[in-house]
């Protein structure tokens, strides 16, 4: 019994702790859509279609939903991702809000592509 306890403390426990740390540090890629009503890329895809069709009111509503989803996702992502990547997404989101409010297609699509790229990079 003592041998098992010693084995657990000296070998098994450190292995379990290190494995947990490794999974935790790499959790971003797997958990970035966890707990969201819809995955973020789906919001982005829908926004792209709305902006292309000039449906600005629907786009603004969808953008608010995306912002809520992002706030939820960042709670998990912050532990495994770079601060700059998170800030980039936040800034692109703010820029997109401005373009949608101004109903400017070119700028909105550019900001949208930025968001897609940043989202794809998160967790890599």
């Amino acid at each position: 019994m003592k041998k098992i306890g010693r084995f657990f403390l000296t070998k098994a426990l450190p292995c379990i702790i290190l494995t947990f740390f490794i999974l935790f540090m790499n959790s971003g890629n797997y958990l970035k859509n966890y707990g969201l009503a819809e995955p973020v890329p789906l919001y982005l895809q829908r926004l792209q279609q709305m902006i292309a069709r000039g449906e600005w009111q629907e786009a603004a509503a969808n953008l608010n939903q995306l912002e809520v989803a992002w706030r939820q996702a960042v709670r998990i992502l912050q532990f495994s991702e770079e601060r700059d990547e998170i800030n980039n997404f936040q800034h692109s989101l703010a820029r997109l809000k401005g373009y949608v409010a101004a109903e400017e297609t070119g700028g909105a699509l550019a900001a949208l592509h930025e968001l897609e790229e940043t989202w794809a990079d998160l967790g890599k």
Partner: protein
Amino acid sequence: MNEAAVVFARGIIAFFTLLIFTRILGKQQVSELTFFDYIHGITIGSIAATLTTDLSSRAWPQWVGLATWTVAVWLLQWITLHSRGFAKYINGEPVILIKNGQIMEKNLKKMRFTIDDLLTQLRHQQIFDLKEVEFALLETDGKLSVLKKTQYAAVTPDDLKIPTKYRGISTELIYDGTVIDANLRRVKLDRSWLDHQLKAQGINSPREVALALLNTEGELYVSRYQQTRQQRAGFQSPKANNE
């Protein structure tokens, strides 16, 4: 983003990773570290610090850096344990600085050691006169080992043919007021013997004792608390209050 929470989580990861990795690398006295050991110790510590507070980079690459250094050091340790030649190449060899009472100036220069450094190291070993020294070697950890001339060496009981008794390691019987029963059983004694010994020294309870050691000659060393537990907890005796 809650930066404080992220730093806290990363700090926990870095702390326990470092704890586990240093256990893997084994115990080594700081004073026994070679220059290379010292450098990699600093590097591993620095990576752990970056892992904790540098939020501009992901935790995972930093952790991989930490693991890489640990594995590299562990590998080097393993090879040096199994190959004497490699160990000499990595850690270097002891260098003779004084040979037959003569200072080896070439070796001093090679090791970037001044005569003042040599004299200082000798003084640390209670040697104030160079003529007492037969050999002095600079070890790989930077310490000086000295062999005195036979006429200056300390006399031992063996030199004088005096018989000596066996002396081993003392056993702790009371620590911080608590009797260590396992140690009592190991030396084949019991509480009644201990109580009797304490009473003989005017002690009524083990709780009055900070440390009690039994040496291999069967003598009990007892160190009592200078203050009672109550006094240490902030209660003053009525006598002390009156004073």
